[in-house]
């Protein structure tokens, strides 16, 4: 019953992330370069359920990202799988729940995710990523601010419990 509940929660979380992503794209596709909604979902579930869940959900979210782009399928998947795993792992080792630490943590995870994705993209395609006029370089900052707000709201609502 608990496993079933977990699966439902994960599916709903991913669908919600996809809905937010679709809404952002309706406003402007450059906004999706700024806020990595899927990564926030991955971090949230990694904090809540641990590194293995984080890696699985990272893989699913990354592959969704890849299926909606005309590129090699699996590039974003690998970077998000790694980030999902390490988010869950480090959340157990260090206390990342104070707001400032949480901000730094999401900023770091988002920056590393972007770096891995950009490196893999450049390796596979032999070309640089689309930066949207430099917008993408603000992704760690914007994702950290947005992620901090979302995760702290969920902690306040007692949806997410601190370890």
């Amino acid at each position: 019953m608990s496993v079933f509940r977990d699966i439902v929660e994960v599916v709903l979380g991913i669908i919600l992330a996809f809905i937010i992503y679709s809404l952002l794209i309706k406003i402007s596709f450059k906004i999706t370069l700024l806020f990595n909604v899927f990564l926030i979902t991955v971090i949230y579930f990694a904090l809540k359920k641990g590194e293995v869940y984080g890696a699985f959900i990272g893989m699913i979210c990354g592959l969704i990202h890849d299926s909606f782009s005309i590129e090699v399928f699996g590039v974003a998947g690998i970077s998000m799988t790694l980030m999902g795993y390490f988010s869950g792992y480090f959340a157990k080792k260090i206390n990342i729940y104070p707001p400032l630490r949480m901000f730094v943590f999401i900023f770091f995870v988002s920056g590393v995710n972007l770096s891995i994705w950009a490196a893999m993209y450049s390796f596979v395609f032999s070309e640089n990523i689309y930066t949207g006029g430099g917008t993408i370089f603000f992704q760690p900052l914007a994702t950290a601010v947005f992620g901090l707000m979302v995760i702290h709201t969920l902690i306040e609502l007692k949806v997410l419990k601190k370890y």
Partner: protein
Amino acid sequence: MHLPLKKNKNIAILVILILFQLILISLQVPLGNEPSIFEKTIFGIFSPIGHTINFLIESVSNVCKNYISLHSAQKENVELRKKLFFLSQENSLLKMLLDKSDEERKIRELLGNEYENLIPARVIGRDASNGYRSVVINRGALDGIKKDFVVLDKNGFLVGRIVEPITFREARIQLITDEKSGVAVEIMGKEVKGIISGDGKGTCQMKFVLSTDMEVNQGDKVVTNGVEGIYPPGLELGYISEVNVSSSLFRDIRVITFSDIKGLDHLAVMKIMAKEFF
């Protein structure tokens, strides 16, 4: 004793997941540009969500619009927009037909089917890594969409072509601004031919124009010439914005698309293939 075992198990799972995705990547090599079944499945599961969101936004926006504007004016406006949409497409196709065919009978035959050959569509999603590469539309296999159908914007300017994956109700369009796209073109009124491909930043480059070819100028119109067998000849694509003379064999020509790729919304899919059309 328990903890290291669990830790190793977790790392093993991570390694399996990474390997699985590396296999997915390597499986795409023999497929070329064709998406794998796995990719098609994920696209098929999530694209209807985008479709529904688009429908909801459209519905809510329509309710608001109807509320604040007079009902009759709104109705008339919708009708006129619809008419304008088809007239723009028709105008573009008529020009194209008249340019390319001198047999009146053939023209009449083709004109009779114009409306039937267009499928109006709306953009419901954009490429997740670069919005200038591809978009997703709310029309799919059930609407008669097939691979390589040509897509025009609301003014009849070339936007791109249908590529895989195509689900029942959604399909992906490769835009002309994608770096991997290729459209055979010529400069209107001049014997200068080349290939247009995108730069991934919203503009295009006209490649393989020899430095010894006839002179080209800023503002010259670029149209398709149909040599690649996908795009029908005569479709207007853009105009030349910059010509750089270099010491190389080919000229460096930049082209700005007529279509506003960034703000694409209403589109028209040409239901017929280039070969059938001409």
